[in-house]
C-alpha cells in the first residue's frame, strides 16, 4: 500500500531523515514511534508532499509519489491528519468537512458526509458552529472527520492524542481501531507508546532520523531498545 525506501529529507541545509525504510500493508495499523525531534513529523510531511524528499523513494498504491505535488497525493487517497489538527478555525464545522472533500465529486461528498456524521454524531450537532470555538476533543474529531471526507485509502494520523484527556484518548484509540476494522490502512504517529502498540499490528521506532527498531507491535513493546530510543540511552 505504502512503501518508503531510503528516504532522506530535511529543511534547507538541515537534514532530518537519514534513509528511512518503512512499509504499510493494506489493512494494517502501523505505529511510528519515537521521541520529540526524531523525525516523525518530517516523515509525514514528506509522505504527503508538503516537503520534497532529497532522495529515496515513496510508492503509494503501486505509483511512485516521491516528487508528486501535495494535491496529487491527496487525490490518490493518502490523507494526512496533521499534528495540531490544522482545522480552519474561522469556518463552520460543515465548511471544514466540505473542504475535506475538496477534490472529490458532489455524490461522494454527500456519501462521505453521512459516513462521517455516523462516526461522529457530535459533529452533526455542531454543524453551524465555528470550528475554532469547539473544545480540543471536538476539534480532533473534526480533524479526523475532515480527513475521512477525502476518502483515504491510507490515513496518516500525526499525534492525534496530543492535548486530549486520558478518557478522550482512550475513546480516540478505540475509534482508530474501529476505522481500521472497517478496512482503512492507518499510519499512526504517536508519543503515546503503550496505547499505540496495543492497537497497532506492527511498529517502527525512529531515532535520529533513522529506523532504530521495527517489528510486530508485541515484540517492539517488549524490546529494551524501545525505552532506549525514548530516553536517549542508545
Amino acid at each position, binding site marked *: 500500500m505504502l512503501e518508503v525506501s531510503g528516504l532522506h529529507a530535511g529543511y534547507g541545509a538541515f537534514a532530518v531523515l537519514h534513509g528511512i525504510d518503512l512499509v504499510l500493508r493494506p489493512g494494517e495499523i502501523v505505529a511510528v514511534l519515537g521521541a520529540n525531534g526524531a523525525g516523525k513529523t518530517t516523515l509525514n510531511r514528506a509522505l*504527503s508532499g*508538503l516537503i520534497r524528499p532529497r532522495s529515496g523513494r515513496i510508492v503509494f498504491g503501486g505509483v511512485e509519489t516521491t516528487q508528486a*505535488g*501535495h*494535491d496529487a*497525493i*491527496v*487525490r490518490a487517497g493518502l*490523507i*494526512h*491528519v*496533521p499534528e495540531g*489538527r*490544522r*482545522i*480552519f*478555525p*474561522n*469556518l463552520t464545522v460543515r*465548511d*471544514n468537512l*466540505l*473542504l*475535506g472533500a*475538496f*477534490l472529490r465529486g458532489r455524490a461522494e461528498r454527500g456519501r462521505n458526509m453521512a459516513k462521517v456524521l455516523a462516526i461522529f454524531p457530535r459533529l452533526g450537532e455542531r454543524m453551524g458552529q465555528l470550528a475554532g470555538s469547539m473544545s480540543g476533543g471536538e476539534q480532533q474529531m473534526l480533524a479526523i472527520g*475532515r480527513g475521512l471526507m*477525502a476518502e483515504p485509502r491510507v490515513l496518516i494520523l500525526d499525534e492525534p492524542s496530543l492535548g486530549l484527556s486520558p478518557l478522550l484518548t482512550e475513546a480516540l484509540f478505540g475509534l482508530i481501531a474501529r476505522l481500521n476494522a472497517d478496512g482503512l490502512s492507518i499510519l499512526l504517529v504517536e508519543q503515546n507508546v503503550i496505547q499505540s502498540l496495543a492497537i497497532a499490528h506492527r511498529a517502527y521506532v525512529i531515532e535520529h532520523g533513522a529506523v532504530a527498531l521495527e517489528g510486530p507491535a508485541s515484540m517492539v513493546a517488549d524490546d529494551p531498545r524501545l525505552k532506549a530510543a525514548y530516553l536517549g540511552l542508545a
Partner: protein
Amino acid sequence: MLEIYTAALINGLLIGGVYALVALGLTLIYGVLHIVNFAHGSLLMVAMFAAWVLAEKAGVSPYAALPVVACGMFAVGWALYRYVIGRVSRGEDRAILLATLGVSVVLDNLFLAIFGGDTRQIEGDLTFAMWEVGPLLLAVPKVIAFGVSLVLAGGLWAFMARTDMGRAIRAVAKEPEGARLMGIRPERVFALAYGIGIGCLGAAGCLLLPSFFVSPHVGSVFVLVAFTIVVLGGMGSFPGAVVGGLLIGVTESLGGLVLGESLGPIGISLVFIAVLLLRPTGLFGAAR
C-alpha cells in the same frame, strides 16, 4: 428644507453603493487574504480608463462594457498576483506592502504618460439623465450603479459562503498548511481571490464612469475611503463592507451639506472614530 436633506441622504446611499463595491474587493484582498493592497486605487483608475476608452473610441456604453472590463480586470489581478506580488512577497507582509505600492506607482505614472493629467468624462445623455421620483431628482447612472453594486455584492457573498472556492479562500487565509493537506493549492487560491477583488474594481469602474471624472489620480480619491470602509465594517466582512459603504456615502453627503464642501469629509473621520471606539473590531467584525 427636509427635501434637501432627503435628497442628500438618498444621494449618499446611491454613491455609498459604489463605495461598497470598491470596498468589497478590498475586504476580500485586505480583510480575508491580509494583503495590504495599495494598488487598489490605481487599479480602479485603470478600470475607469478601460471603460472610458471603450466608450469614447469604440462607442460601447459602460454598462455593456461592464462584464468585459470586470473579466479583464480579473485577469489583470490574477496575473499581477501570480507574476508580481506573489513572487516578490514570498509571504512576507512588508514585501507585499512594497510590492503593491510599487505596482501603484508604476500604474499611476504609466497612465499619466499615456493619457496626460487631464480629467476626462464620457460625453452623452447618460451623464445627465435624471429620474423624477416624487419631489426628488435622482441621477440615473447613480441609481443603476447602486442597484448593480448591491446585486454584485450579494453574488460575491453567496460565492464566498456557498462555493468550494469561496470556502477555500477563507480557509487558506487562516490555515494554509491545513488547506494544502486537503489538496488545495494556496498560491492558486490567492491569485484567484486577488483577481476577484480586482474584478470588482472593473465593475465599479464601469458603474462610476458615467457620473465621475477620470484622471490618473482618481484612485487616491477612493482608496482611502475604501480602507476606511473595510476597517469600519469589520475586516473581511462582506455585510460590513456594504453597510460601511452606505454609511460612509451618507455621512459624506450629509456632512457636505451641513458643514460645507471643504469641511464635510471630517464627518467620515468622526463616524470612523466613533465606531471604532464602540466596536474595535468594526461593525460586523468577529471578535478576536
